[in-house]
């Protein structure tokens, strides 16, 4: 039983662990290809032939983008999505930040339960929320209105804002607030002058991702939007099967670019926080 494998491998002591098998790398890279390629393949198609999908494209032009920007229904849907996303992000950011601060800094008895209720829409199937909002808005006579869309999206975004901002609040040094309070600052003053400025990186990333989530949201909008208030995802969804022109390739490319920009923006905000922490210590 003195095979070399049984011997103590003393050379491994002190070395960082670096047992890697090439197989893991190959599998991981295949998975990355599976994850990324579908969205990437759409990009060359969006610059390609106008009337049908040809791959690889035989020509390069901006026709599909031109078509998108000159079709009023597409522009109207995009404007509507932007409007709903901006409004619901603004409301959700305000309510969510207040709720997060309230929960983090209070010793409420039902805190845990409150948190579960507040966060549940994050994991409950979107269609359940959508149906609930749909029948609710139908009863109060708001169905199909932009107000209903904004309210629905706010409900959908709030839990996400609460989670993101709570994480930011947990990193704050509570003694700074205590110090401000000792020096005579009121609760409102502490919140606006001490807490909010420190939370800026979390607020930026919560805001950016909320905007993206609302802009891309399909299920709730599909249930509660009307003919006059169609959002971009709803219009995309209904035209995937009917549209013969590959205009959706151009729209998809633009949406992918929007996601990239927002991810980079949030990454920038995260680095900002790191720098701030480094500068503090």
């Amino acid at each position: 039983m003195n095979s070399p494998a049984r011997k103590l491998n003393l050379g491994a002591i002190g070395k960082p662990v670096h047992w890697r098998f090439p197989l893991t790398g190959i599998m991981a890279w295949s998975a990355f290809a599976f994850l990324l390629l579908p969205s990437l393949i759409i990009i060359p198609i969006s610059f390609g032939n106008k009337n049908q999908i040809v791959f690889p494209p035989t020509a390069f032009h901006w026709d599909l983008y031109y078509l998108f920007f000159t079709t009023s229904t597409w522009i109207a849907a995009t404007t509507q999505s932007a409007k709903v996303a901006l409004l619901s992000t603004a409301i959700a950011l305000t309510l969510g930040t207040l709720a997060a601060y309230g929960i983090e800094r209070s010793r409420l008895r039902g805190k845990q339960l409150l948190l579960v209720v507040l966060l549940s829409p994050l994991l409950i199937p979107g269609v359940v929320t959508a149906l609930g909002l749909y029948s609710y808005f139908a009863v109060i006579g708001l169905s199909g209105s932009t107000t209903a869309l904004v309210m629905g999206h706010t409900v959908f975004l709030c839990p996400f804002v609460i989670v993101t901002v709570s994480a930011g609040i947990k990193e704050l040094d509570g003694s700074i607030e205590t110090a401000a309070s000792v020096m005579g600052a009121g609760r409102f003053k502490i919140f606006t002058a001490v807490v909010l400025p420190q939370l800026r990186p979390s607020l930026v990333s919560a805001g950016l991702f909320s905007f993206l989530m609302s802009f891309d949201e399909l299920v709730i909008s599909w249930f509660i939007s009307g003919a006059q208030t169609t959002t971009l995802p709803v219009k995309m969804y209904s035209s995937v099967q009917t549209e013969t022109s590959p205009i959706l390739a151009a729209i998809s490319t633009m949406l992918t670019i929007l996601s990239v920009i927002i991810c980079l923006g949030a990454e920038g905000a995260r680095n900002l926080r790191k720098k701030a922490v480094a500068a503090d210590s």
Partner: protein
Amino acid sequence: MSLGFIVPLGFIFFRSFTIDGVFTLEGFRSLLTSPLFVRVFWTTLEISLIASIVALAVGYPVALHISRQSERVRSLYLIMVLLPFWTSILVKSYAFTVILGDAGLINTALRALRLPQFEMIFNRFGVLAASTNFLVPFAVFPILANLLAQDPNLGKAAEVMGAGPLRIFWRITFPLSGSGVLAGFILTFVLSLGLFATPALLGGRHDMMMANLIDFYTRDTLNWNAASAIAVILLFTSAVLLLLLNRVRGTEKFA
């Protein structure tokens, strides 16, 4: 503020137990005896089960690979998981219709090579491919969190004692990652129960899932009672699974 969410949910419960304001269990009774619902229910479970298992199998090597990188490289790899995570599900579903369709990229290539072509869209395969693609990032995160929380000294100890990389993986890393895999499974399974756009765009008539059936009852037959009853069943199933997830998270502290 939580009222904004609770009130609509209350409406669903109210509607699922009432027809024209009268209390009744008729909605649930007729659902459970409806062949359409029973079929859709099993389809949903089947698709969710297969898609989440495949997503875990695809996501595990990704998490393993990322966990073994230095911190700098790790954040670069993470971007490659986060980017698809933040890509609109409509974009991804559309991409799959373009790739898998009858006149899609794969079939066109096969035709050019004079090979037999496959029907990969409007059937179970299309739904599973696109759902798995959607779920993989959700499988990666809990597994990665678990792998990063593992004590690296265990691996070192095993290496010192002469264990090869494969042995270290099978005897130490993999068994220890069990709770991460379980958390990933519950998460992806719950998410796939609620899939809406993917089965609608890539599936055929026999791949309808519960969310699509709710949509069908709400829009096409205006049967709000049935739609709400399905939503209650869906909600209940998800809630039970999420409580389980909470259990798993409680025993192992990560994420």
